[in-house]
């Protein structure tokens, strides 16, 4: 369960990204966060795994206030929270398998990390993760030789290899073409249902959000303006989220 209680976030340059955010997300939900660029979507995600710190208020994950976590405890917490990035953030020169194996690095002894020696058990688990996203045959291909959709799947496999209870995805399909984007979204749905992992997804394309996600949170200028099942959102509410501008969809971009 993820909870936000009266959370405010102000950046050092004075810009207030989040204003009094209150949320409750039970385990296993598939949530889409929509809104304009700069509305605060990324900040919400990054407050959960403490890539950013909340200025006021509390962020509580599974009954633990994340602001109390430091050092080794914080890193242990992050093992359980996976993050997917828009630019994939893979180690380009490594093979897909090696990239997925890096998910185990935080728990390995120093000498193993230094020499890059993984056990057979770790390699088998990493291959299983690649299999779960359907690119087992690309295990030994270098990441920079894969297509965009395949790279995002490697990123997903890396996250799955962590055995997370939460996955935070920051614009995961923004760099992908429509067909691949839909495949990756379908992967997210499957992972959410099969493994009961909570997924919070930032997404720009509202049609994808409404089609694949259970719940939608609309953010505008740092405030939550809509929070409910995807099926109940109305056009008027969408317009409010997007402040009167055209609502972006996959077809219109």
């Amino acid at each position: 369960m993820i909870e936000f209680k009266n959370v405010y976030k102000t950046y050092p340059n004075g810009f207030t990204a989040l204003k009094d955010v209150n949320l409750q997300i039970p385990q296993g939900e598939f949530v889409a966060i929509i809104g304009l660029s700069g509305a605060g979507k990324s900040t919400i995600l990054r407050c959960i795994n403490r890539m950013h710190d909340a200025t006021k208020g509390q962020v509580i994950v599974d009954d633990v206030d994340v602001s109390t976590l430091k050092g080794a405890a914080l890193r242990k917490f992050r093992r359980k929270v996976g993050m997917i990035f828009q630019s994939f953030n893979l180690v380009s020169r490594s093979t897909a398998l090696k990239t997925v194996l890096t998910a185990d690095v935080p728990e390995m002894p120093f000498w193993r990390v230094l020499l890059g020696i993984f056990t057979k058990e770790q390699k088998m688990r990493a291959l299983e993760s690649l299999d779960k996203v359907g690119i087992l045959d690309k295990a030994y291909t270098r990441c920079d030789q894969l297509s965009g959709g395949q790279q995002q799947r490697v990123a997903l496999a890396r996250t799955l290899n962590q055995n997370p209870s939460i996955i935070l995805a920051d614009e995961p399909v923004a760099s992908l073409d429509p067909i691949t984007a839909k495949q990756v979204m379908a992967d997210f749905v499957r992972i959410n249902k099969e493994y009961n992992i909570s997924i919070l997804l930032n997404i720009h394309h509202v049609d994808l959000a409404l089609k694949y996600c259970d719940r939608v949170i609309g953010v505008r200028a740092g405030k939550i303006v809509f929070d409910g099942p995807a099926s109940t959102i109305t056009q008027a509410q969408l317009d409010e989220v997007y402040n009167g501008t055209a609502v972006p969809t996959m077809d219109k971009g």
Partner: protein
Amino acid sequence: MKKKNGSVLETLDHKLTVAEAYALRPRKWVLYTVIVLILATLVGWSGSDVHFSGLTSTGSSVARGVVSGIFHPDTSLMFGTGETDVPYLLLQTIAIAILGTLFGSILAVPFAFLASTNIMPRPIAYAFRVVILLIRTIPSLVWALMWIRVTGPGAACGVITQSVCSIGMISKMYITAIEDLDTKILESLDAMGCTPFQKIRYGVIPQLTASFISTTIYRFDINLKDATTLGIVAAGGIGSSLMQCLNSRRWAMVGSFVWGLMLLVVVIEFFSTKIRTRLAHGE
């Protein structure tokens, strides 16, 4: 796992199982072990003869002396105005580097053109490249020791040594610039009816000037440091005095020379990077 309906993937090859994928893993560890072994042997062999025979009888006092000299330099030397003081010697070192670089870059021009494959026929170009290579291989110190026979010790020796040594590196860089010449400009000048001289003046030279100037400044930087090194063989500049003081164990003076040297290099490096970035972006 084989649930896809008639997808293209299914018809290509059967779906890999995880166990099969594991068996297919590339066995890179053999290559890595070999590389590590080669490196270890090289290092081990290199270290075999190098033994620490202990500090010299004066070793630790020298070390302490140098450190104390750096922290307590002789300020009268550092700010004095005489011919044996730091400022004058720094200026002399700069003067050596200026002339050495200038003469070197001028002399390097004919060498570079004669050694470029897009201007001269290949055999001649390669012949000149060999000449340049020979010039470069003779260490600057050796050149200095040879030129001392001609000019005698002092700053003049430093100048001629640096000129000759600069030819080596500068012509190499010039050659790269010349071989990168864009010949299309020459074509359009030709179409306008220009003489060969005009083509060189308006087609070739503008392309080369920025690169030549940048190379010269770069080499000036290096020559500045080299000029102090040449001082060790008495070719003038701050190096000679530094050497004398080290030999006579005058630590405070050593300290002031080191400070003067560091200041010089830092200031010159700062200016030369600024100029070179402006050259690359602006004029």
